[in-house]
Protein backbone atom coordinates (compact mmCIF):
# COMPACT_ATOMS: atom_id res chain seq x y z
CA UNK A 1 0.00 0.00 0.00
CA UNK A 2 1.29 3.46 -0.78
CA UNK A 3 1.66 5.43 2.40
CA UNK A 4 -0.72 8.37 2.41
CA UNK A 5 1.86 10.55 4.11
CA UNK A 6 4.32 10.32 1.23
CA UNK A 7 4.37 13.71 -0.44
CA UNK A 8 3.46 13.99 -4.04
CA UNK A 9 6.95 15.09 -5.05
CA UNK A 10 8.42 11.98 -3.48
CA UNK A 11 5.80 9.97 -5.24
CA UNK A 12 6.87 11.34 -8.63
CA UNK A 13 10.52 10.70 -7.81
CA UNK A 14 9.69 7.15 -6.89
CA UNK A 15 8.09 6.65 -10.24
CA UNK A 16 11.00 8.16 -12.12
CA UNK A 17 13.76 6.32 -10.35
CA UNK A 18 12.84 2.84 -9.20
CA UNK A 19 15.31 1.28 -6.77
CA UNK A 20 18.03 -1.02 -7.97
CA UNK A 21 16.21 -4.04 -6.65
CA UNK A 22 13.09 -3.06 -8.53
CA UNK A 23 15.07 -2.55 -11.71
CA UNK A 24 16.75 -5.92 -11.32
CA UNK A 25 13.52 -7.78 -10.72
CA UNK A 26 10.92 -5.91 -12.68
CA UNK A 27 12.89 -4.07 -15.28
CA UNK A 28 14.99 -4.92 -18.28
CA UNK A 29 17.28 -7.52 -16.77
CA UNK A 30 14.35 -9.59 -15.57
CA UNK A 31 12.94 -9.31 -19.09
CA UNK A 32 16.16 -10.69 -20.59
CA UNK A 33 16.29 -13.40 -17.99
CA UNK A 34 12.70 -14.47 -18.65
CA UNK A 35 13.26 -14.45 -22.40
CA UNK A 36 16.45 -16.52 -22.38
CA UNK A 37 15.28 -18.92 -19.66
CA UNK A 38 12.02 -19.55 -21.48
CA UNK A 39 13.88 -19.99 -24.76
CA UNK A 40 16.34 -22.41 -23.16
CA UNK A 41 13.55 -24.51 -21.60
CA UNK A 42 11.68 -24.74 -24.89
CA UNK A 43 14.90 -25.63 -26.69
CA UNK A 44 15.77 -28.38 -24.20
CA UNK A 45 12.32 -29.94 -24.42
CA UNK A 46 12.37 -29.69 -28.21
CA UNK A 47 15.73 -31.47 -28.13
CA UNK A 48 14.23 -34.20 -25.92
CA UNK A 49 11.35 -34.58 -28.36
CA UNK A 50 13.71 -34.95 -31.33
CA UNK A 51 16.32 -37.28 -29.74
CA UNK A 52 14.74 -38.87 -26.67
CA UNK A 53 16.89 -42.00 -27.10
CA UNK A 54 20.03 -39.92 -26.62
CA UNK A 55 19.03 -38.90 -23.09
CA UNK A 56 16.53 -41.43 -21.77
CA UNK A 57 18.26 -44.09 -19.66
CA UNK A 58 15.66 -46.83 -20.27
CA UNK A 59 13.09 -48.02 -22.77
CA UNK A 60 9.94 -46.08 -21.82
CA UNK A 61 7.60 -48.94 -22.76
CA UNK A 62 9.31 -51.74 -20.87
CA UNK A 63 9.32 -52.36 -17.16
CA UNK A 64 9.62 -55.29 -14.77
CA UNK A 65 6.69 -55.79 -12.43
CA UNK A 66 9.20 -56.60 -9.68
CA UNK A 67 10.33 -52.97 -9.96
CA UNK A 68 6.85 -51.43 -9.78
CA UNK A 69 6.24 -48.27 -7.75
CA UNK A 70 9.78 -47.78 -6.56
CA UNK A 71 10.56 -44.27 -5.27
CA UNK A 72 12.96 -41.78 -6.92
CA UNK A 73 16.60 -42.88 -6.66
CA UNK A 74 15.73 -46.60 -6.68
CA UNK A 75 18.50 -48.96 -7.81
CA UNK A 76 17.22 -52.07 -9.57
CA UNK A 77 18.71 -55.58 -9.63
CA UNK A 78 20.96 -54.77 -12.58
CA UNK A 79 22.39 -51.75 -10.77
CA UNK A 80 20.48 -49.22 -12.92
CA UNK A 81 19.34 -46.06 -11.13
CA UNK A 82 15.78 -44.80 -11.59
CA UNK A 83 16.17 -41.12 -10.72
CA UNK A 84 12.44 -40.33 -10.77
CA UNK A 85 11.27 -43.75 -9.63
CA UNK A 86 9.12 -46.27 -11.50
CA UNK A 87 5.42 -46.49 -12.33
CA UNK A 88 2.75 -49.16 -11.77
CA UNK A 89 4.27 -51.37 -14.45
CA UNK A 90 7.83 -50.90 -13.27
CA UNK A 91 8.68 -48.53 -16.12
CA UNK A 92 11.22 -45.75 -15.57
CA UNK A 93 9.40 -42.45 -14.93
CA UNK A 94 12.29 -40.26 -16.11
CA UNK A 95 12.48 -42.07 -19.45
CA UNK A 96 8.74 -41.80 -19.87
CA UNK A 97 8.76 -38.10 -19.09
CA UNK A 98 11.54 -37.61 -21.67
CA UNK A 99 9.71 -39.59 -24.35
CA UNK A 100 6.48 -37.84 -23.42
CA UNK A 101 7.94 -34.62 -24.82
CA UNK A 102 7.60 -36.16 -28.27
CA UNK A 103 3.83 -36.24 -28.33
CA UNK A 104 3.23 -32.93 -26.58
CA UNK A 105 5.69 -30.90 -28.61
CA UNK A 106 5.05 -32.51 -32.00
CA UNK A 107 1.33 -32.11 -31.66
CA UNK A 108 1.67 -28.65 -30.07
CA UNK A 109 4.01 -27.21 -32.70
CA UNK A 110 1.98 -28.72 -35.54
CA UNK A 111 -1.22 -27.29 -34.13
CA UNK A 112 0.34 -23.84 -33.81
CA UNK A 113 1.81 -23.91 -37.33
CA UNK A 114 -1.32 -25.17 -39.08
CA UNK A 115 -3.65 -23.05 -36.99
CA UNK A 116 -1.33 -20.10 -37.55
CA UNK A 117 -1.26 -20.45 -41.33
CA UNK A 118 -5.03 -20.82 -41.57
CA UNK A 119 -5.70 -18.06 -39.04
CA UNK A 120 -3.31 -15.57 -40.63
CA UNK A 121 -4.80 -16.23 -44.07
CA UNK A 122 -8.36 -15.75 -42.83
CA UNK A 123 -7.40 -12.72 -40.74
CA UNK A 124 -5.57 -10.96 -43.57
CA UNK A 125 -8.35 -11.67 -46.07
CA UNK A 126 -11.01 -10.48 -43.63
CA UNK A 127 -9.15 -7.35 -42.61
CA UNK A 128 -8.10 -6.44 -46.13
CA UNK A 129 -11.43 -6.97 -47.84
CA UNK A 130 -13.70 -5.99 -44.97
CA UNK A 131 -17.46 -6.17 -45.54
CA UNK A 132 -19.44 -9.40 -45.31
CA UNK A 133 -16.40 -11.67 -45.24
CA UNK A 134 -14.95 -9.74 -42.34
CA UNK A 135 -18.27 -9.80 -40.46
CA UNK A 136 -18.68 -13.52 -40.94
CA UNK A 137 -15.11 -14.36 -39.95
CA UNK A 138 -15.27 -12.26 -36.80
CA UNK A 139 -18.64 -13.73 -35.78
CA UNK A 140 -17.14 -17.20 -36.05
CA UNK A 141 -14.14 -16.06 -34.01
CA UNK A 142 -16.38 -14.59 -31.29
CA UNK A 143 -18.57 -17.67 -31.22
CA UNK A 144 -15.64 -20.02 -30.88
CA UNK A 145 -14.03 -17.97 -28.14
CA UNK A 146 -17.22 -17.76 -26.12
CA UNK A 147 -17.94 -21.48 -26.23
CA UNK A 148 -16.04 -24.06 -24.16
CA UNK A 149 -14.08 -25.69 -26.97
CA UNK A 150 -12.98 -28.63 -24.82
CA UNK A 151 -16.46 -30.08 -25.29
CA UNK A 152 -16.11 -30.12 -29.09
CA UNK A 153 -12.60 -31.52 -28.69
CA UNK A 154 -13.78 -34.38 -26.47
CA UNK A 155 -16.75 -35.25 -28.67
CA UNK A 156 -14.48 -35.11 -31.73
CA UNK A 157 -11.88 -37.40 -30.19
CA UNK A 158 -14.51 -39.89 -29.02
CA UNK A 159 -16.58 -40.02 -32.21
CA UNK A 160 -14.11 -39.45 -35.05
CA UNK A 161 -11.06 -40.81 -33.25
CA UNK A 162 -7.93 -39.58 -31.53
CA UNK A 163 -4.44 -40.43 -32.77
CA UNK A 164 -1.80 -37.90 -33.81
CA UNK A 165 -3.51 -36.56 -36.95
CA UNK A 166 -6.85 -36.03 -35.23
CA UNK A 167 -5.13 -34.39 -32.26
CA UNK A 168 -3.30 -31.97 -34.55
CA UNK A 169 -6.55 -31.17 -36.32
CA UNK A 170 -8.37 -30.64 -33.01
CA UNK A 171 -5.63 -28.28 -31.82
CA UNK A 172 -5.44 -26.41 -35.13
CA UNK A 173 -9.19 -25.78 -35.09
CA UNK A 174 -8.80 -24.35 -31.59
CA UNK A 175 -5.63 -22.46 -32.49
CA UNK A 176 -6.47 -20.46 -35.61
CA UNK A 177 -8.82 -18.07 -33.79
CA UNK A 178 -6.36 -15.76 -32.05
CA UNK A 179 -4.13 -15.65 -35.15
CA UNK A 180 -7.09 -14.58 -37.27
CA UNK A 181 -8.07 -11.91 -34.80
CA UNK A 182 -4.60 -10.36 -34.61
CA UNK A 183 -3.95 -10.73 -38.34
CA UNK A 184 -7.22 -9.00 -39.09
CA UNK A 185 -6.53 -6.15 -36.69
CA UNK A 186 -3.14 -5.53 -38.24
CA UNK A 187 -4.51 -5.72 -41.78
CA UNK A 188 -7.19 -3.18 -40.90
CA UNK A 189 -4.57 -0.84 -39.49
CA UNK A 190 -2.22 -1.18 -42.42
CA UNK A 191 -4.57 -1.18 -45.36
CA UNK A 192 -5.12 2.58 -45.43
CA UNK A 193 -1.41 3.43 -45.15
CA UNK A 194 0.22 5.38 -47.95
CA UNK A 195 2.59 2.64 -48.98
CA UNK A 196 -0.29 0.28 -49.61
CA UNK A 197 -2.02 2.94 -51.71
CA UNK A 198 1.28 3.42 -53.52
CA UNK A 199 1.57 -0.29 -54.34
CA UNK A 200 -1.99 -0.23 -55.59
CA UNK A 201 -1.31 2.86 -57.73
CA UNK A 202 1.66 1.02 -59.24
CA UNK A 203 -0.69 -1.76 -60.28
CA UNK A 204 -0.04 -4.26 -57.47
CA UNK A 205 -2.88 -6.75 -57.10
CA UNK A 206 -4.63 -7.81 -53.89
CA UNK A 207 -2.54 -10.93 -53.44
CA UNK A 208 0.70 -9.04 -53.97
CA UNK A 209 -0.35 -6.49 -51.36
CA UNK A 210 -1.36 -9.12 -48.83
CA UNK A 211 1.61 -11.43 -49.28
CA UNK A 212 4.46 -9.03 -50.00
CA UNK A 213 3.43 -5.98 -48.02
CA UNK A 214 1.01 -6.94 -45.28
CA UNK A 215 2.36 -10.31 -44.22
CA UNK A 216 5.86 -9.05 -43.29
CA UNK A 217 4.26 -6.30 -41.23
CA UNK A 218 2.11 -8.64 -39.16
CA UNK A 219 4.92 -11.06 -38.34
CA UNK A 220 5.82 -9.43 -35.00
CA UNK A 221 2.38 -9.75 -33.39
CA UNK A 222 1.95 -13.18 -34.97
CA UNK A 223 5.09 -14.40 -33.19
CA UNK A 224 3.71 -13.13 -29.91
CA UNK A 225 0.45 -14.99 -30.44
CA UNK A 226 2.37 -18.12 -31.45
CA UNK A 227 4.09 -18.16 -28.06
CA UNK A 228 0.81 -18.05 -26.14
CA UNK A 229 -0.89 -20.52 -28.48
CA UNK A 230 1.87 -23.08 -28.00
CA UNK A 231 1.20 -23.08 -24.26
CA UNK A 232 -2.56 -23.20 -24.75
CA UNK A 233 -2.50 -26.06 -27.24
CA UNK A 234 -0.04 -28.16 -25.23
CA UNK A 235 -2.41 -27.79 -22.27
CA UNK A 236 -5.32 -28.91 -24.45
CA UNK A 237 -3.36 -31.91 -25.73
CA UNK A 238 -2.40 -32.87 -22.17
CA UNK A 239 -6.02 -32.57 -21.07
CA UNK A 240 -7.23 -34.82 -23.88
CA UNK A 241 -4.58 -37.43 -23.19
CA UNK A 242 -5.43 -37.25 -19.48
CA UNK A 243 -9.02 -38.09 -20.42
CA UNK A 244 -7.74 -41.09 -22.36
CA UNK A 245 -8.34 -39.39 -25.71
CA UNK A 246 -4.74 -38.82 -26.77
CA UNK A 247 -2.42 -40.96 -28.87
CA UNK A 248 -2.57 -44.75 -28.56
CA UNK A 249 -2.17 -45.81 -24.92
CA UNK A 250 1.24 -47.50 -25.18
CA UNK A 251 2.97 -44.30 -26.35
CA UNK A 252 4.19 -42.32 -23.33
CA UNK A 253 2.39 -38.97 -23.02
CA UNK A 254 2.38 -36.67 -20.02
CA UNK A 255 -1.39 -36.47 -19.74
CA UNK A 256 -1.93 -40.21 -19.84
CA UNK A 257 0.90 -40.78 -17.35
CA UNK A 258 -0.93 -38.54 -14.90
CA UNK A 259 -4.17 -40.33 -15.62
CA UNK A 260 -2.49 -43.66 -14.76
CA UNK A 261 -1.06 -42.13 -11.58
CA UNK A 262 -4.52 -41.18 -10.32
CA UNK A 263 -5.15 -44.71 -9.11
CA UNK A 264 -2.01 -44.78 -6.98
CA UNK A 265 -1.96 -41.37 -5.29
CA UNK A 266 -1.42 -42.93 -1.87
CA UNK A 267 1.41 -45.24 -2.93
CA UNK A 268 3.43 -43.38 -5.55
CA UNK A 269 3.35 -39.59 -5.35
CA UNK A 270 6.21 -39.35 -7.86
CA UNK A 271 4.13 -40.71 -10.72
CA UNK A 272 1.58 -37.97 -10.06
CA UNK A 273 4.19 -35.22 -9.82
CA UNK A 274 6.91 -35.33 -12.47
CA UNK A 275 4.82 -35.51 -15.67
CA UNK A 276 2.85 -32.52 -14.33
CA UNK A 277 6.04 -30.59 -13.72
CA UNK A 278 7.05 -31.27 -17.32
CA UNK A 279 3.74 -29.93 -18.65
CA UNK A 280 3.82 -26.88 -16.39
CA UNK A 281 7.44 -26.10 -17.33
CA UNK A 282 6.79 -26.19 -21.06
CA UNK A 283 3.57 -24.19 -20.82
CA UNK A 284 5.20 -21.72 -18.45
CA UNK A 285 8.11 -21.29 -20.86
CA UNK A 286 5.72 -20.77 -23.78
CA UNK A 287 3.73 -18.17 -21.82
CA UNK A 288 6.88 -16.36 -20.74
CA UNK A 289 8.06 -16.45 -24.33
CA UNK A 290 4.81 -14.84 -25.46
CA UNK A 291 5.06 -12.27 -22.69
CA UNK A 292 8.62 -11.24 -23.36
CA UNK A 293 8.17 -11.27 -27.13
CA UNK A 294 5.25 -8.91 -26.60
CA UNK A 295 7.27 -6.58 -24.44
CA UNK A 296 10.07 -6.56 -26.98
CA UNK A 297 8.16 -6.51 -30.22
CA UNK A 298 4.77 -5.05 -29.66
CA UNK A 299 3.73 -3.56 -26.34
CA UNK A 300 0.51 -2.32 -27.95
CA UNK A 301 -0.75 -5.90 -28.06
CA UNK A 302 -1.22 -6.07 -24.29
CA UNK A 303 -4.99 -6.26 -24.41
CA UNK A 304 -5.28 -8.55 -27.38
CA UNK A 305 -3.72 -11.80 -26.43
Amino acid at each position, binding site marked *: *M*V*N*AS*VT*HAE*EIDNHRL*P*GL*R*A*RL*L*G*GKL*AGHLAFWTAGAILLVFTGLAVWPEAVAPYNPRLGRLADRHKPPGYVDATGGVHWLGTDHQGRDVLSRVIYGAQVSLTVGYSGVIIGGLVGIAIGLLAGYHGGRLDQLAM*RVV*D*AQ*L*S*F*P*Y*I*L*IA*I*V*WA*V*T*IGSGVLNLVAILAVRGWVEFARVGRGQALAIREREYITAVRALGGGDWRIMLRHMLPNVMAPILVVAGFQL*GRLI*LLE*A*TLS*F*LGLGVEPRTPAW*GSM*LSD*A*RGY*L*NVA*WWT*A*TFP*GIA*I*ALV*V*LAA*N*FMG*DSLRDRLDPAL*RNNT
Partner: protein
Amino acid sequence: MRRFVLQRLIQGIIIVAAVSLIVFLFVQASGDPAALLVPEQATPEDVANYRKALGLDRPIYEQYLQFMGNFWFSDAVKSFRFHQPLLPLVLQHLKFTLILAGLTIVASSLVAVPLGIVAALGRGSVLDVGIRVVAVLGQSMPSFWVAMLLMLVLAVHLRLFPVSGLGVKNVVLPTITLAFFQMAVLLRLVRSELLEVMSQDYIRTARAKGVPERWVTIQHALKNAAIPVITVMGLQFGALVQGAIVVEPIFAWPGLGWLLVESIAARDFPVVVAGAIVAAVFVTVVNLVVDILYGWLDPRIRVN
Protein backbone atom coordinates in the same frame (compact mmCIF):
# COMPACT_ATOMS: atom_id res chain seq x y z
CA MET B 1 -30.12 -0.62 -26.39
CA ARG B 2 -33.09 -2.74 -27.40
CA ARG B 3 -31.59 -3.21 -30.85
CA PHE B 4 -28.29 -4.26 -29.31
CA VAL B 5 -29.93 -6.83 -27.07
CA LEU B 6 -31.99 -8.18 -29.96
CA GLN B 7 -28.88 -8.44 -32.14
CA ARG B 8 -27.00 -10.32 -29.45
CA LEU B 9 -29.98 -12.61 -28.85
CA ILE B 10 -30.09 -13.59 -32.51
CA GLN B 11 -26.35 -14.14 -32.45
CA GLY B 12 -26.75 -16.33 -29.38
CA ILE B 13 -29.41 -18.44 -31.04
CA ILE B 14 -27.15 -18.94 -34.05
CA ILE B 15 -24.27 -20.02 -31.78
CA VAL B 16 -26.47 -22.50 -29.94
CA ALA B 17 -27.81 -23.90 -33.22
CA ALA B 18 -24.31 -24.18 -34.67
CA VAL B 19 -22.88 -25.90 -31.60
CA SER B 20 -25.74 -28.37 -31.35
CA LEU B 21 -25.49 -29.12 -35.08
CA ILE B 22 -21.73 -29.71 -34.90
CA VAL B 23 -22.03 -32.03 -31.91
CA PHE B 24 -25.01 -33.78 -33.50
CA LEU B 25 -23.09 -34.38 -36.73
CA PHE B 26 -20.06 -35.70 -34.86
CA VAL B 27 -22.28 -38.11 -33.00
CA GLN B 28 -23.91 -39.24 -36.26
CA ALA B 29 -20.51 -39.77 -37.85
CA SER B 30 -19.40 -42.03 -35.01
CA GLY B 31 -21.63 -44.86 -36.11
CA ASP B 32 -24.94 -46.43 -35.38
CA PRO B 33 -26.15 -46.13 -31.79
CA ALA B 34 -28.69 -48.86 -32.45
CA ALA B 35 -25.90 -51.42 -32.86
CA LEU B 36 -24.68 -50.52 -29.39
CA LEU B 37 -28.07 -50.55 -27.78
CA VAL B 38 -29.63 -53.78 -28.94
CA PRO B 39 -28.86 -56.98 -27.06
CA GLU B 40 -26.07 -59.13 -28.51
CA GLN B 41 -28.36 -61.89 -29.78
CA ALA B 42 -30.51 -59.47 -31.82
CA THR B 43 -31.09 -60.33 -35.49
CA PRO B 44 -30.43 -57.75 -38.23
CA GLU B 45 -34.20 -57.42 -38.44
CA ASP B 46 -34.42 -56.45 -34.77
CA VAL B 47 -31.76 -53.83 -35.35
CA ALA B 48 -33.67 -52.41 -38.32
CA ASN B 49 -36.86 -52.24 -36.28
CA TYR B 50 -35.03 -50.59 -33.45
CA ARG B 51 -33.49 -48.01 -35.80
CA LYS B 52 -36.95 -47.25 -37.12
CA ALA B 53 -38.35 -46.88 -33.63
CA LEU B 54 -35.60 -44.38 -32.77
CA GLY B 55 -36.02 -42.55 -36.09
CA LEU B 56 -32.46 -43.39 -37.08
CA ASP B 57 -33.47 -44.40 -40.60
CA ARG B 58 -34.43 -40.89 -41.65
CA PRO B 59 -32.24 -38.21 -43.29
CA ILE B 60 -29.86 -36.44 -40.94
CA TYR B 61 -31.41 -32.97 -41.18
CA GLU B 62 -34.80 -34.45 -40.31
CA GLN B 63 -33.30 -36.26 -37.34
CA TYR B 64 -31.63 -33.06 -36.19
CA LEU B 65 -34.81 -30.99 -36.41
CA GLN B 66 -36.78 -33.71 -34.72
CA PHE B 67 -34.20 -33.95 -31.97
CA MET B 68 -34.26 -30.21 -31.36
CA GLY B 69 -38.04 -30.18 -31.33
CA ASN B 70 -38.20 -33.06 -28.90
CA PHE B 71 -35.46 -31.65 -26.74
CA TRP B 72 -37.18 -28.33 -26.14
CA PHE B 73 -40.86 -29.22 -26.29
CA SER B 74 -41.41 -32.85 -25.35
CA ASP B 75 -40.09 -35.79 -23.39
CA ALA B 76 -39.99 -38.12 -26.39
CA VAL B 77 -36.19 -38.50 -26.53
CA LYS B 78 -34.73 -40.01 -23.39
CA SER B 79 -31.27 -40.76 -22.15
CA PHE B 80 -30.15 -44.23 -23.30
CA ARG B 81 -28.72 -44.86 -19.87
CA PHE B 82 -30.82 -42.96 -17.34
CA HIS B 83 -34.12 -43.35 -19.23
CA GLN B 84 -35.06 -39.82 -18.24
CA PRO B 85 -36.19 -36.95 -20.45
CA LEU B 86 -33.14 -34.90 -21.49
CA LEU B 87 -33.86 -31.33 -20.45
CA PRO B 88 -34.77 -32.05 -16.80
CA LEU B 89 -31.83 -34.45 -16.50
CA VAL B 90 -29.34 -31.88 -17.77
CA LEU B 91 -30.80 -29.05 -15.70
CA GLN B 92 -30.63 -31.19 -12.59
CA HIS B 93 -26.86 -31.54 -13.09
CA LEU B 94 -26.40 -27.94 -14.21
CA LYS B 95 -27.44 -26.95 -10.70
CA PHE B 96 -24.25 -28.46 -9.25
CA THR B 97 -22.09 -26.76 -11.85
CA LEU B 98 -23.74 -23.44 -10.94
CA ILE B 99 -22.91 -23.97 -7.28
CA LEU B 100 -19.30 -24.76 -8.17
CA ALA B 101 -19.04 -21.82 -10.58
CA GLY B 102 -20.52 -19.38 -8.07
CA LEU B 103 -18.16 -20.47 -5.31
CA THR B 104 -15.23 -20.32 -7.70
CA ILE B 105 -16.01 -16.76 -8.76
CA VAL B 106 -16.37 -15.62 -5.14
CA ALA B 107 -13.19 -17.41 -4.01
CA SER B 108 -11.06 -16.26 -6.92
CA SER B 109 -12.20 -12.62 -6.62
CA LEU B 110 -11.56 -12.58 -2.88
CA VAL B 111 -7.97 -13.60 -3.53
CA ALA B 112 -7.26 -11.93 -6.87
CA VAL B 113 -8.57 -8.41 -6.24
CA PRO B 114 -6.53 -7.62 -3.08
CA LEU B 115 -3.41 -9.31 -4.47
CA GLY B 116 -3.77 -7.48 -7.77
CA ILE B 117 -4.06 -4.14 -5.97
CA VAL B 118 -1.02 -4.88 -3.79
CA ALA B 119 0.97 -5.90 -6.86
CA ALA B 120 0.01 -2.78 -8.83
CA LEU B 121 0.66 -0.35 -5.99
CA GLY B 122 4.03 -1.93 -5.27
CA ARG B 123 4.98 -2.27 -8.91
CA GLY B 124 8.44 -3.78 -9.36
CA SER B 125 8.78 -4.82 -5.73
CA VAL B 126 9.63 -8.35 -4.64
CA LEU B 127 6.02 -8.80 -3.59
CA ASP B 128 4.81 -7.77 -7.04
CA VAL B 129 7.15 -10.20 -8.76
CA GLY B 130 6.11 -12.98 -6.37
CA ILE B 131 2.42 -12.36 -6.95
CA ARG B 132 2.93 -12.32 -10.71
CA VAL B 133 4.85 -15.59 -10.62
CA VAL B 134 1.93 -17.21 -8.79
CA ALA B 135 -0.42 -15.80 -11.41
CA VAL B 136 1.63 -17.19 -14.31
CA LEU B 137 1.82 -20.55 -12.54
CA GLY B 138 -1.95 -20.58 -12.23
CA GLN B 139 -2.26 -20.19 -15.98
CA SER B 140 0.41 -22.76 -16.81
CA MET B 141 -0.48 -25.69 -14.57
CA PRO B 142 -3.07 -27.99 -16.13
CA SER B 143 -6.21 -27.98 -13.98
CA PHE B 144 -6.35 -31.76 -13.77
CA TRP B 145 -2.84 -31.77 -12.32
CA VAL B 146 -3.72 -29.08 -9.77
CA ALA B 147 -6.67 -31.29 -8.85
CA MET B 148 -4.40 -34.30 -8.37
CA LEU B 149 -1.88 -32.37 -6.27
CA LEU B 150 -4.67 -31.06 -4.03
CA MET B 151 -6.00 -34.59 -3.64
CA LEU B 152 -2.53 -35.91 -2.92
CA VAL B 153 -1.76 -33.36 -0.22
CA LEU B 154 -5.10 -32.32 1.28
CA ALA B 155 -7.12 -35.50 0.87
CA VAL B 156 -4.72 -38.45 0.83
CA HIS B 157 -2.00 -37.23 3.21
CA LEU B 158 -3.63 -34.66 5.49
CA ARG B 159 -7.13 -36.17 5.23
CA LEU B 160 -8.72 -32.74 5.48
CA PHE B 161 -11.21 -33.26 2.66
CA PRO B 162 -12.85 -36.24 0.98
CA VAL B 163 -11.32 -37.28 -2.34
CA SER B 164 -14.57 -37.20 -4.27
CA GLY B 165 -18.35 -37.22 -4.16
CA LEU B 166 -21.17 -34.87 -3.30
CA GLY B 167 -21.37 -32.86 -0.10
CA VAL B 168 -20.40 -29.63 1.63
CA LYS B 169 -16.80 -30.69 2.28
CA ASN B 170 -16.57 -32.21 -1.18
CA VAL B 171 -16.99 -28.90 -2.95
CA VAL B 172 -13.83 -27.41 -1.45
CA LEU B 173 -11.19 -29.13 -3.58
CA PRO B 174 -12.89 -28.64 -6.97
CA THR B 175 -13.49 -24.99 -6.03
CA ILE B 176 -9.82 -24.43 -5.18
CA THR B 177 -8.79 -26.15 -8.41
CA LEU B 178 -10.99 -23.97 -10.60
CA ALA B 179 -10.34 -20.84 -8.57
CA PHE B 180 -6.58 -21.22 -8.96
CA PHE B 181 -6.82 -20.68 -12.72
CA GLN B 182 -9.53 -17.99 -12.47
CA MET B 183 -7.51 -16.18 -9.83
CA ALA B 184 -4.49 -16.09 -12.13
CA VAL B 185 -6.45 -14.49 -14.96
CA LEU B 186 -8.19 -11.96 -12.69
CA LEU B 187 -5.04 -11.09 -10.80
CA ARG B 188 -3.12 -10.15 -13.90
CA LEU B 189 -6.04 -8.14 -15.14
CA VAL B 190 -6.63 -6.23 -11.89
CA ARG B 191 -2.94 -5.37 -11.78
CA SER B 192 -2.64 -4.17 -15.37
CA GLU B 193 -5.95 -2.26 -15.33
CA LEU B 194 -5.05 -0.49 -12.10
CA LEU B 195 -1.64 0.48 -13.47
CA GLU B 196 -3.31 1.75 -16.62
CA VAL B 197 -5.84 3.83 -14.69
CA MET B 198 -3.19 5.19 -12.33
CA SER B 199 -1.40 6.78 -15.29
CA GLN B 200 -4.52 8.65 -16.45
CA ASP B 201 -4.83 12.44 -16.36
CA TYR B 202 -7.75 12.43 -13.90
CA ILE B 203 -5.61 10.65 -11.33
CA ARG B 204 -2.97 13.35 -11.71
CA THR B 205 -5.69 15.96 -11.35
CA ALA B 206 -6.99 14.33 -8.20
CA ARG B 207 -3.49 14.23 -6.75
CA ALA B 208 -2.82 17.81 -7.81
CA LYS B 209 -5.87 19.07 -5.99
CA GLY B 210 -4.59 17.44 -2.82
CA VAL B 211 -6.70 14.31 -2.54
CA PRO B 212 -4.93 11.88 -0.17
CA GLU B 213 -3.23 9.02 -2.01
CA ARG B 214 -5.34 6.36 -0.33
CA TRP B 215 -8.52 8.12 -1.42
CA VAL B 216 -7.19 8.51 -4.95
CA THR B 217 -6.62 4.79 -5.07
CA ILE B 218 -9.95 3.78 -3.66
CA GLN B 219 -12.30 6.40 -5.05
CA HIS B 220 -10.79 7.20 -8.43
CA ALA B 221 -8.58 4.36 -9.51
CA LEU B 222 -10.32 1.23 -8.21
CA LYS B 223 -13.73 2.33 -9.40
CA ASN B 224 -12.54 2.80 -12.95
CA ALA B 225 -10.39 -0.30 -12.98
CA ALA B 226 -13.38 -2.34 -11.82
CA ILE B 227 -15.30 -2.03 -15.09
CA PRO B 228 -13.09 -4.16 -17.34
CA VAL B 229 -12.43 -6.54 -14.47
CA ILE B 230 -16.14 -7.22 -14.03
CA THR B 231 -16.54 -7.75 -17.77
CA VAL B 232 -13.75 -10.27 -17.89
CA MET B 233 -15.17 -12.05 -14.84
CA GLY B 234 -18.32 -12.53 -16.85
CA LEU B 235 -16.56 -13.52 -20.03
CA GLN B 236 -14.47 -16.02 -18.07
CA PHE B 237 -17.65 -18.01 -17.56
CA GLY B 238 -16.95 -19.92 -20.75
CA ALA B 239 -13.52 -20.83 -19.40
CA LEU B 240 -15.10 -21.77 -16.10
CA VAL B 241 -17.50 -24.21 -17.77
CA GLN B 242 -14.54 -25.56 -19.72
CA GLY B 243 -12.66 -26.09 -16.47
CA ALA B 244 -15.72 -27.73 -14.90
CA ILE B 245 -15.88 -30.26 -17.73
CA VAL B 246 -12.35 -31.41 -16.88
CA VAL B 247 -12.38 -31.03 -13.10
CA GLU B 248 -15.85 -32.33 -12.14
CA PRO B 249 -15.23 -35.91 -13.27
CA ILE B 250 -11.95 -36.03 -11.31
CA PHE B 251 -13.75 -35.23 -8.06
CA ALA B 252 -16.93 -37.04 -9.09
CA TRP B 253 -18.80 -33.76 -8.56
CA PRO B 254 -22.11 -34.47 -10.33
CA GLY B 255 -22.34 -31.29 -12.39
CA LEU B 256 -22.88 -30.76 -16.10
CA GLY B 257 -19.22 -31.54 -16.85
CA TRP B 258 -19.40 -34.85 -15.03
CA LEU B 259 -22.64 -35.74 -16.82
CA LEU B 260 -21.13 -34.88 -20.21
CA VAL B 261 -17.94 -36.86 -19.74
CA GLU B 262 -19.80 -39.84 -18.26
CA SER B 263 -22.30 -39.81 -21.11
CA ILE B 264 -19.57 -39.58 -23.71
CA ALA B 265 -17.82 -42.56 -22.17
CA ALA B 266 -21.08 -44.52 -22.06
CA ARG B 267 -21.98 -43.49 -25.64
CA ASP B 268 -25.20 -41.95 -24.27
CA PHE B 269 -25.30 -39.52 -27.17
CA PRO B 270 -28.69 -37.82 -26.67
CA VAL B 271 -27.39 -36.59 -23.32
CA VAL B 272 -24.14 -35.41 -24.94
CA VAL B 273 -25.99 -33.29 -27.49
CA ALA B 274 -28.41 -32.03 -24.84
CA GLY B 275 -25.56 -31.13 -22.49
CA ALA B 276 -23.76 -29.27 -25.26
CA ILE B 277 -26.92 -27.29 -26.04
CA VAL B 278 -27.46 -26.34 -22.41
CA ALA B 279 -23.78 -25.40 -21.97
CA ALA B 280 -23.97 -23.19 -25.07
CA VAL B 281 -27.22 -21.52 -23.93
CA PHE B 282 -25.78 -20.99 -20.48
CA VAL B 283 -22.54 -19.39 -21.64
CA THR B 284 -24.34 -17.26 -24.23
CA VAL B 285 -26.87 -15.95 -21.72
CA VAL B 286 -24.15 -15.08 -19.20
CA ASN B 287 -22.17 -13.24 -21.88
CA LEU B 288 -25.26 -11.30 -22.91
CA VAL B 289 -26.04 -10.31 -19.33
CA VAL B 290 -22.45 -9.18 -18.87
CA ASP B 291 -22.64 -7.05 -22.00
CA ILE B 292 -25.82 -5.39 -20.77
CA LEU B 293 -24.32 -4.82 -17.32
CA TYR B 294 -21.24 -3.36 -18.96
CA GLY B 295 -23.29 -0.72 -20.73
CA TRP B 296 -25.10 0.02 -17.50
CA LEU B 297 -21.89 0.34 -15.46
CA ASP B 298 -20.06 2.44 -18.00
CA PRO B 299 -22.28 4.96 -19.79
CA ARG B 300 -19.44 5.76 -22.19
CA ILE B 301 -19.99 2.39 -23.89
CA ARG B 302 -23.72 2.90 -24.31
CA VAL B 303 -23.24 5.83 -26.66
CA ASN B 304 -21.33 3.66 -29.09
